[in-house]
């Protein structure tokens, strides 16, 4: 994943021109092109608005790390470093991944017949030490991101209010949500296609 020119999913899967997976992706050309266009919109947009490149890549590293997707996390970590992030920020994200990793999906349903399927799991809160390195805005983003990755059915207006209180405007939250949700797609496509191609 260098720059924004090459197709990110092709790079993550190791798809070369003329290979069987290249032919399969070519049968869904709009999906292929617009998965890449989404990547550009979220990580190399024409205007970053209020959400900085560092914030976008920091969340990317965190999401990929929580998925245990090492190669994807490494790719986003390189882009985070290229965006000028301090080493302390990259280290704080790496430490947060270690603290926050668990297994999903879990969460609760509205009280009723589905309550028997309620499954409890951790609610992640950034440690005081990490909060100093991340700052309040990214700390709030990582707490929200953990919920979205592992227990999205626990989402509530309170999760969004915490982001608003930490300085994320409504439009910024839409972008943050798209980053986490899109990566949940991109990582799974990469894992699925690698498996289909018989790669570990």
């Amino acid at each position, binding site marked *: 994943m260098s720059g924004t020119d090459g197709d990110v999913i092709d790079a993550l899967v190791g798809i070369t021109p003329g290979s069987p997976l290249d032919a399969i992706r070519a049968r869904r050309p709009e999906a292929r092109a617009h998965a890449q266009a989404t990547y550009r919109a979220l990580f190399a947009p024409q205007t970053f608005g209020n959400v900085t490149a560092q914030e976008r890549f920091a969340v990317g590293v965190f999401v990929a790390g929580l998925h245990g997707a090492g190669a994807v996390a490494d790719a986003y970590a390189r882009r985070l470093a290229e965006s000028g992030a301090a080493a302390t920020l990259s280290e704080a994200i790496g430490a947060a991944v270690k603290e926050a990793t668990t297994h999903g999906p879990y969460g609760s349903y509205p009280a009723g017949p589905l309550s028997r399927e309620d499954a409890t799991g951790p609610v992640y809160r950034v440690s005081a030490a990490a909060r100093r390195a991340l700052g309040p805005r990214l700390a709030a983003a990582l707490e929200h991101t953990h919920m979205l990755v592992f227990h999205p*059915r626990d989402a509530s*207006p309170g999760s969004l209010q915490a982001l608003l209180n930490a300085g994320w405007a409504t439009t910024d939250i839409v972008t943050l949500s798209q980053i986490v949700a899109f990566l949940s*797609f991109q990582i799974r496509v990469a894992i699925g296609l690698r498996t289909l191609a018989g790669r570990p």
Partner: protein
Amino acid sequence: MSESVLKPPPHTAPTAFTRAQLDWLPWLEPLAAEAMTPRHMASLVDAARVKSPYFRLLARDPDALEARTRTDKDIFYNPDAGLPRAERELAAAATSRFNGCLYCASVHARHAATYSKREDDVQRLLDAGVGADLGERWNAIVAASVALTATPSAFGPEHVERLRRAGLDDLAISDVIHAAAFFNWANRLMLSLGEPAAPSAT
């Protein structure tokens, strides 16, 4: 002063998975239709979506919304071979059932039932969950979707083999992967930016 979340109007929250039509109420302020620029409007792709608070909220990041929607449409509507539409919808419904998105599951269970004519099997998926016995081909599609939806992913060569044994070629298996992966995207937006509401009983 920071902004505040929206307080949805009084409504009945659905408490079970259903194929019935649900509403969706946003927790953040969508763009007002009359305030949308030509760029915002184009990002909806389908102009009729201006009626939807969900799409008017996502239109706050128009480039991301437009690319999301065009990805979605090709994965589910591209008619060139691969997995039949009914089974792309089945993968979407199974993913939504496992993540717990009642709204997404309602839409895509409805589509799966419409295109497959297997209403009873689709309803069994909603009622009993992703372990329901739907016959081997559908079981294989549901199991693959669920394994890929787990975090970290539990999808492995055994899922690919089972899909091949059930008669899927590699393009069809790629369609299962994309349909399940896409609903890991869609479920997270639907679940976290608002909530479903049952149409009021009269």
